[in-house]
């Protein structure tokens, strides 16, 4: 063996290792995504594949497995179910599309880019008229790209202000705040209790910065888009972000809010240290189960005195990929999913909110959900119907937190600019 070849061999090991690692991200991971026997005739039994996000360890897989059994019994078709965690689902779905092997149905928090790439069936193709008319209009609108509906809502949530009653009593606060001024004063009182108590849990870290900022800006009359134009750096939004920053600089929030993820803020609230946090119904479920924190749920405070509290709604989507021979089976999937005993069972188990008119009626009897249900039909959503938003959302997640130590206006100006350039 020559000296030279030995040196090269060591270098080659490095090359191999780097390539193998790089290759993974380049996309060879979805080898298991196959198994779609696309028989051409609509009458014969078909196998379709569902890739669904995991909302909870306990319920998501259990529901979809049972759903697959019901689906088989009703239609004769087979439904393969693959549950993927939220952390991985963006990567998995991207890899599947990249390898030209998408699932038949994908459950995700975005759809518009897929619709733009002409990969999806519209509701005209796969949704029965009776099903579509039962969906709440706000969600039909958010699921529609260029006049056609592609994103079918699977469940929804609405945000509200959670407050710790024990801390409120200790600090001598009688009622949850109605305006931003009251909110700030209350946060100060709770922080002043000492002992590490935190006025407000503010999560502007990369997990869901857009959610936290959304509900605050909606309550200041702002929006991401107004009349079809991006208004990310509107005066209201700059004012809103500056207000949030002022909470951070006054130390009324937990440490480092620009680097705190939503789950971390929820965990802190659940530990009883935090006076207020913006939460949603699954948080209530967690808190009830733990039984540690005596909490209340109130509408969001508004900037203006006597304003109407606005809520931020979120829906996730079930979208269907165009593949030869799967249209009838996909339609049968949606017909079954939107049966009240299916969709409402799923939503109830996961602790979320309904997406149909019949669902609202079915959930109305639950007093715990009243705060959300009343506001749900008028909830503000993020502009998920614009494919640009899919990129803007990522930019917001990666940049908004920097405003806590930087200049809020500059951060929003940059986001506005990237949105205008198409993400």
């Amino acid at each position, binding site marked *: *063996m020559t*000296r*030279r070849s*030995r*040196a090269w061999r*060591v*270098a080659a*090991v*490095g*090359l191999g*290792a*780097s*390539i*193998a*690692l*790089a*290759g*993974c*991200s*380049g*996309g*060879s991971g979805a080898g298991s995504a196959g198994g779609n026997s696309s028989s051409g005739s609509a009458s014969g039994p078909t196998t379709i594949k569902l890739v669904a996000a995991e909302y909870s360890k306990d319920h998501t897989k259990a529901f979809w497995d049972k759903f697959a059994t019901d689906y088989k019994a009703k239609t004769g078709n087979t439904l393969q179910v693959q549950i993927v965690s939220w952390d991985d689902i*963006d*990567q998995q*779905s*991207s890899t*599947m*599309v*990249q390898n030209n092997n998408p699932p038949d149905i994908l459950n995700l928090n975005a759809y518009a*880019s*897929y619709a733009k*790439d002409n*990969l999806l069936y519209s509701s005209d193709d796969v949704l029965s008229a009776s099903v579509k008319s039962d969906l709440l209009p706000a969600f039909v609108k958010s699921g529609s790209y260029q006049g056609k509906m592609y994103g079918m809502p699977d469940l929804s949530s609405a945000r509200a202000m959670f407050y710790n009653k024990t801390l409120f009593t200790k600090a001598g606060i009688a009622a949850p705040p109605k305006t931003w001024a009251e909110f700030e004063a209350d946060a100060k009182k709770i922080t002043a209790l000492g002992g590490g108590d935190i006025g407000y849990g503010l999560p502007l*870290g*990369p*997990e869901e*910065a857009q959610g936290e900022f959304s509900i605050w800006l909606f309550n200041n009359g702002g929006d991401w888009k107004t009349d079809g134009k991006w208004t990310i750096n509107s005066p209201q939004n700059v004012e809103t972000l500056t207000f949030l920053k002022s909470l951070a600089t006054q130390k009324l929030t*937990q*440490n*480092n809010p620009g*680097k*705190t*993820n939503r789950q*971390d803020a929820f965990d*802190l609230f659940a*530990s009883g*240290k935090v006076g207020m946090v913006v939460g949603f119904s699954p948080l209530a479920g967690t808190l009830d189960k733990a039984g540690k924190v005596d909490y209340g749920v109130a509408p969001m405070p508004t900037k203006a005195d006597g304003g109407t509290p606005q809520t931020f709604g979120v829906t996730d989507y079930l979208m269907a990929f165009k593949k030869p021979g799967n249209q009838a089976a996909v339609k049968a999937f949606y017909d079954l999913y939107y049966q009240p005993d299916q969709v409402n069972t799923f939503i109830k188990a996961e602790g979320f909110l309904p997406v149909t008119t019949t669902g609202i009626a079915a959930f109305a009897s639950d007093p715990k959900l009243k705060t959300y249900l009343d506001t749900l039909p008028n909830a503000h959503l993020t502009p998920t119907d614009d*494919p640009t938003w*899919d*990129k803007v959302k*990522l*930019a917001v*997640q*990666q*940049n*908004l*937190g*920097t405003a806590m130590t930087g200049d809020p206006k500059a951060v929003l100006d940059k986001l506005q600019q*990237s949105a205008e350039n198409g*993400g």
Partner: protein
Amino acid sequence: MSQPSTTMTGATGKPAAPVGARPRGRRRATVRGRGAISPLAALVWLAPALLLIVGVVLWPAVELVRASRSRYSITGLRKGPAGWDNFRNVLANDSLGTVLTNTVIWVIAVVALTIAISLGVAQFLTKDFWGRRFVRWAVIVPWAASLVITARLFTLIYSYYYGSINAVLLDLHLITTPIDFLGSDKLIMPSMIAVGVFVSIPFTAYVFVAGLGAIPTEVHEAARIDGGSPWQIWRHITLPLLRPAILVASVMNMIYVFNSFPIVYTLNESNPGFSHDTTITFMYKLAFKSAEKDVGQSAAAGLFNVVIILVAVLVYLRVTRWRDQEEQ
């Protein structure tokens, strides 16, 4: 990680290769003498290895190059050829300078500290003492644990509100407010480096244990008889004879640490932007997490990574004069 390590320790186990002394012609003759193997039979025997190389190294590499020259939609759909656009975009990224600086600091600090600490650990492990076997096993543990789990564990240890480090320091009244190991721009890199060193020590220490074992005891004895102090013996006998092991350990560690994804990604998870990423996590975020969300750019970044580590290793071998080493 385990595969290369066994081959490398094996190689360092007997640094003096007697093969060079044998004339070449004779060696070839003996092979022929055992009976010629037909090329077809040879191919059959080589096929599994060749398939593995093609499937695991060549095919992904080809795919990576293809992806880097393609234009992708945010959904992952290939939209056509991109020429060199992906490469240009990566080079034009505002954060590239920060990412490269982070990578250099990360690799140099982790490798240098690992080598220094492992030298001591290896010396300790070769001493004869009661319970040595137990200690040797304990040193392996961080290596045996999954990197993701280790990294996750350290986010808890470092945590501002619940972390055990802060709890201990607060209880001892050494600090009055918790230290934000993972949130402070100044502390996150040292915090990550500490974890990187922690998980790199076992492999490196064992390379050195093997290297120390290969040093003939006579040399040390002779040095002692000649009146050498322990420091002199270590400095002028042990260290030079360990050189091959140190070189191998540094090269392997450079590659592992450069390619280390879980530690940087997990500990840096709640920090927005690219300000604490290395080139590997930068590549991943380009594809799936950042506003670019572009598989093509990520593939281009991946190719840059391959070039960077290749050049870094070759420069290192050149600087340390690997070839001179071989001549000894």
